Each structure stands twice: as structure tokens, then as C-alpha cells.
């Protein structure tokens, strides 16, 4: 942690409202964006982001402060999203949500977002943390509570599945030398 981050963390853990406000200003964009990519749904993303900050505030004294702030918040967001997903038994279909013009303003890359929603949850979360949010594999492993090797594997698998999706849209190709192909 940088000295300014340490200072913010200490003030936040001490319950200082201004520190919480500062944390929100610094991080709410990242947290919301991550939640949006994770859930594929703007309303759910707002709920997850709100709940993430509330959980952070309530559990601030239990946070050991050994990881970066964003790592900690992502971690809470992953838990919150997982909990919401299990609860949401009237689950909206991603295709319907993403086809909504209002949603598309936030979603950015519709095609990839739809592909992401087709990925298994573990793979999607790992891919988002590393490839979109720019965390290291080690940091992502802390967020997800997984071994670093597992996260690396998940990111690799996610990339491979996404590439395969792109290739499905292109003419089929075969490896020139079948002996060297692993496809």
C-alpha cells in the first residue's frame, strides 16, 4: 500500500465518514464496472456495487488491511454477486438485458459481454479480474480465494473459449500439419 492508501485505510477503519466518502469516490467506478461485467445487467450491477460498499463499511474493522483496497472490494463484490445470483430466482436473461438500448450504453462491447455471460462463473470472474481490471494472477487469486495456478488456468480457459467463439463466426480452418495440431 502507498502511504496515502494506508492513511485512507486507517481513517476508514476508524469509522471516519470522510474516508468512506473518499473511498467511494475513488473506487465506485471500478466496483460498478466489475459488477456490471460480472452480472451482465445494469440493475444487478448497481445492487452489487451498493451492497459491496455497505459490506465494506460494516466489516471495515475486520479487514486486516494486508491487501490493496481494490482487491478487498473486488473480493466483497464477488461474494455479493454470488449471493445475489443464488437468490435471484427470476433471473433476467442476459440477451434480453443486453438488447435493451438503455443497457447498451453501459455495456460497451455487447458481443464480448454476451460471450462472457456464457462462460462458467469461475472462469468469467477470473478473466474479468485479470484481463479487464488488470489484477495480477496473485491478486486475483486473493480476490477469488483460489490458488494462483487455478486462477491462471481459469483465465487461460476463458481466453480459449472466447477465442473459440470468435472463430465460430469465421470460416473453419484446419491446422496445416495435423501432427502438430492439438485442436
Amino acid at each position, binding site marked *: 500500500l502507498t502511504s496515502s492508501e494506508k492513511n485512507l485505510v486507517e481513517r476508514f477503519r476508524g469509522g471516519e465518514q470522510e474516508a468512506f466518502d473518499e473511498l467511494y469516490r475513488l473506487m465506485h467506478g471500478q466496483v460498478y*464496472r466489475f459488477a456490471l461485467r460480472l452480472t451482465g445487467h445494469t440493475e444487478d450491477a*448497481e445492487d452489487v456495487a451498493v451492497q459491496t460498499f455497505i459490506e465494506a*463499511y460494516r466489516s471495515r474493522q475486520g*479487514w486486516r488491511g494486508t491487501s490493496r483496497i481494490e482487491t478487498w472490494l473486488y473480493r*466483497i463484490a464477488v461474494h455479493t454477486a454470488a449471493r445475489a445470483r443464488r437468490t435471484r430466482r*427470476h*433471473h433476467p436473461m442476459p440477451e434480453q438485458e443486453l438488447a435493451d438500448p438503455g443497457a447498451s450504453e453501459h455495456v460497451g462491447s455487447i458481443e*464480448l459481454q454476451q460471450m462472457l455471460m456464457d462462460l462458467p462463473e469461475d472462469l468469467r470472474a477470473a478473466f474479468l479480474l485479470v484481463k479487464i481490471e488488470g489484477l495480477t494472477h496473485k491478486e486475483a487469486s486473493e480476490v477469488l480465494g483460489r490458488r494462483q495456478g487455478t486462477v491462471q488456468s481459469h483465465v487461460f480457459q476463458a481466453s480459449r473459449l472466447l477465442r473459440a467463439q470468435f*472463430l465460430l463466426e469465421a470460416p473453419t480452418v484446419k491446422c496445416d500439419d495435423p501432427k502438430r495440431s492439438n*485442436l
Partner: protein
Amino acid sequence: MKCQTAERLFDDYATGNLPETTRTQLQEHMRSCASCRAQADAAQRLELQCAGLKKADAPDLRDRIFHQVSSPPGTQEKPMNKTKIGISLALATAVCAIALTSVLSIKPASAMTIVKRSIKAVQQVRTAKVITWYREGGEVHTRTVWSDDKRTREEVDGKVCVFKDGKTSNDPEHEAYISVIKPSEWTIESMLAAYRNAMVPTDLGMHELNGRQLRLIRFSLDHEALPPSRWDYYVDDTSNLPVQLEHYQRQNGDWVKVTQATYEFDIALTDSLFELPAGRSWHTVPNLPTGEVIGGVQEPLDGESSKPK
């Protein structure tokens, strides 16, 4: 270079992070391998689209957040829009208590053995009735579920929703829940992933509950990102089936019961129970999820701070 090796390099190739020598080797391979060329193109396309995902305007959520953290307990708005967090607590209760044992690495052998037997027993049951009491927005709600392997009838605060073979009733007064809950799905390891290595089960021996002697297994959650919680899980020592689950959260130094659940397994369920209410019709629900879990209770929660008997 083999395709298998090349495949591991596509991501770094697309981002320009490959060392010069490796990049040259990969390019040489791709000259004779159309498949890998296509994969590399796909990787670059993926990289471009990832850049698009890094942009998203976040709405101002300040009011919703700060309103809740500054409100006294019981006056907060519902934590999740259009979701039933209370049910989630019940779900988490059931799941964590029943299925966590399969992934926990540190636990007393006796507790693990007992819960493993419970998991096996639950997987073998065919029907169930579960009543759940849970808190949401400062109110206590009731959820009752009758279920066999193919059909589920559910009531939330007396409002009915019936599910059958991937269809649900279109009761406009009830949210269109979309899952058929199978008793055998109550042990779902994927639900435990979020709490992996954060829960420790303890066998607390036999306790009396509503006149019955039941074994109490306690799961304690110690996770820096979550409020301290514990799940008290009462098991019938003869049938190995769960009888009652209670979820407590630490609030202001006290353990507060937030959800309580009881189960009845292998009971007779009549066909008429799953018939649609008059005037309703079936509609098909796509993407039926798996792994739904339920929990339940027989009597209202008994106060803000209670302990297992």
C-alpha cells in the same frame, strides 16, 4: 514450436507482451499453421473488445450507500433490488451447513463424518416440505416449499407459484420464479466456493430441540470481507437428515438470528398440491438454473438475540 505451446502465447502476443525471441518463434510457426494464425487473430480481436469493456459510466450510488450505512438497524432499505436476500440467507444456511464439508480442509472428523452422512441422506430423499422464516427490510417473511424431483410448489407470504417441468405459473401477483427445486439439489458444492476455507464445522453434541434430541453441528464463518456468521445445524442422529438450521450474524456484539429453517423429508405429496391456481396458465421458462437450495422453519423468529436451545 507446437500448437499446444503456441496456444499459451496468444494472449501475450495480442497484447504485445511477448519477448522478441518468442514472438519470432510464434510468427514462424504461424506461417505454416493456419489454425494458429486464426487463433492469434481471434486473440487480437478479443483484446480489442476487452478494451471496450474497460469503459462504463457508473451511476451515482452515493445516496443508496450512505443512507444505509447511516440508518439505524431495521430501517435500511432492502439490500438487493427485486431479490429476496432473506431467501438467500436461507439458501446460504442450507448450503453452507450441508455441503461445505466436502471442500473444507480443516475440521473435526466427527463433525465432517456426520455432515457427510447428512449429505448422502438428503441426496436420497424424494420429497420434502420446507418452511422458511427470514428477515427482509426489517420484516419477517414466510416461504413454504413443497417439492419432489420434478415439481415444486412455493408460497411466499401466502402468494403461490407453481413450477412443473421447466414451466412456471404466470401468476401476476408473484414474481416468476424459474426453478424446480429438487431435494437432491440441496447439496451444491458450487455454492460453497465463496466460503471456501472460511468455515469450520464443530460437533457440539446432542441438544434438545422442540422435545427432540438432535446433534448440533455449528459452522462458523471467519472471513475478513464478511460479517461474522454462524450456522447452527441440527441433525437427526438416526436418519442423518437435517431437521433445523439457524443462521446468526454478529451485530453490535450480539449474535442475532436472521434466518431459521426446518425440514420434513420423504413425506406424502398429492398431485393436487401442484395444480395451478384457478385462472392461471403455464409458460415455459428458458435457461432453467440448477443448484437451487431451500431452507425453512416451523415457528417465527424468537427475538433479536437468541441462542439454540
